[in-house]
């Protein structure tokens, strides 16, 4: 499967400051300066020196225990976080199915939100115009197009979010355990849509706790442990390591 490089992560580190006294008022700041007190700065490296390269069509499963840095890594690749150190290069259209509906406005109707959220994802108006009916039909919200989102159930909201996110044909698909959207019927439908995307030679980054799910979808695996890459390679080699880790 030698092809073009799709995602390249080079020595990426991500630092968070977990200062126990978070200074966000001017008074505390001035007092801190005047008394010469050192701000307790607990630095926490969510990612340490992570590097890997994916070629177009690779499907990477990211495994690790809670707090290993999986979601941070996905967010850094999606562009939400800027890595403290290192560099991430990616080619093509990204569909981040990270937090469905993060751009939604609750006072807006579904119609308005499709345009707003579409714009957040980088679509242009013409594209949304052509996909509008598809999105509504896929989310099964034909009757609620002009209802403000605050009156929606959480299932309806995530269905709409999923439909908008997957309206593109992405080159890179980022999945954070979102396969469980809505009821059983919608879940089947959404799974089918994602599997269909796989057929189009899309690069996938998938986070899950279920090794079974990862094995069925991915051809490569990456194990993160406390922010560091513990193992990276084909999924057949990675799966036993992860099994050993978790047992």
């Amino acid at each position, binding site marked *: 499967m030698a092809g073009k490089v799709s995602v390249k992560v080079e020595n990426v580190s991500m630092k968070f400051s977990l200062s126990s006294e978070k200074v966000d008022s*001017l008074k505390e700041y001035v007092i801190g300066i005047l008394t010469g007190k050192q701000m307790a700065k607990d630095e926490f490296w969510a990612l340490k020196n992570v590097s890997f390269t994916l070629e177009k069509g690779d499907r990477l499963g990211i495994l690790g225990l809670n707090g290993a840095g999986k979601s941070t890594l996905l967010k850094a690749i*999606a562009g939400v976080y800027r890595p403290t150190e290192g560099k991430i290069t990616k080619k093509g259209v990204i569909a981040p199915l990270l937090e469905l509906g*993060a*751009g939604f406005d609750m006072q807006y109707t579904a119609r308005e939100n499709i*345009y707003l959220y579409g714009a957040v994802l980088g*679509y242009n108006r013409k594209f949304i115009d052509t996909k509008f009916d598809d999105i509504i039909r896929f989310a099964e919200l034909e009757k609620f197009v002009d209802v403000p989102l605050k009156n929606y159930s959480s299932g309806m909201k995530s269905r709409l979010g999923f439909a908008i996110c997957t309206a593109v044909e992405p080159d890179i698909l980022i999945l954070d355990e979102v396969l469980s959207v809505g009821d059983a019927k919608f879940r089947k439908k959404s799974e089918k849509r994602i599997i269909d995307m796989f057929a189009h030679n899309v690069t996938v980054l998938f986070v899950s706790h279920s090794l079974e799910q990862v094995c069925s979808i991915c051809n490569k695996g990456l194990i993160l442990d406390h922010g560091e890459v513990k193992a990276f390679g084909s999924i057949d080699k990675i799966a036993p390591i992860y099994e050993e880790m978790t047992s």
Partner: protein
Amino acid sequence: MMVYIKGFWKRRFLLYELVIKGIRLKYRRSYLGIIWSLIEPILTTIVLTIVFGTLFGNKNRDFPLYIITGRLMFSFFQEGTKNACKSIRANAGMIKKVYVPKYFYPLSGILFNFIIFAISLIVLFPTSIYTKTVPTHRIWHLIPAICYLLVFTIGMGMILATLNVFFRDIEYLWNVALLMIMYMSAIFYYPEKLLKSGWFWILKYNPMFCIIDLARSGILNYSVTWWNLLYPMIFGLVTLLIGIVFFRKKQDEFILHI
């Protein structure tokens, strides 16, 4: 530089959507909707004219026009900077979850207020008919005045948005500062007395007063000074530059503080 312009152009639809969202949500569920942007300045001008005209004895015929010009410009500055100040915190949920160029938040907050301001300028027509003021060729003064106002507001907005991420107090401090700036900008009194006193610098070095005075000179037909034409332009551009540099330098830290 080209990279930024390209990035901006690619995402212009998002900026448009954010601006429209501000306008739509501001007047949603009110019966008169956007017409409020016309009624509100007229009503407050009537109040101010009664208080400062009738009660304080400013009997000039064009006093209402004098007041409404100052008030319209100042209230855009006020609403725009307030909105920008809160913008990063108000959109914390979105910033943590999806990638959007961060300057879009303060910028869209200011631009939507600018559109409402532009619409509300319509009220200058009925007011000038009421005061029997005929516009002259000097009306062009409005163009630089409005440009300076926008540039200065965006610059201040970027600075405030950045500061407010790190110190929440700024939101409250800025409200007090706005009150001070309002009294220092001769919105509802004539500046002559103050200009002749030892306190003239309060007005002379206040960019808001210079901008408002520039606009008034266009509407009320008096000659413009070089000072009013140049000082607020330079002040505004420097503020914008500081705002952009400061915002850019700190924007990657936002996510750790919101």
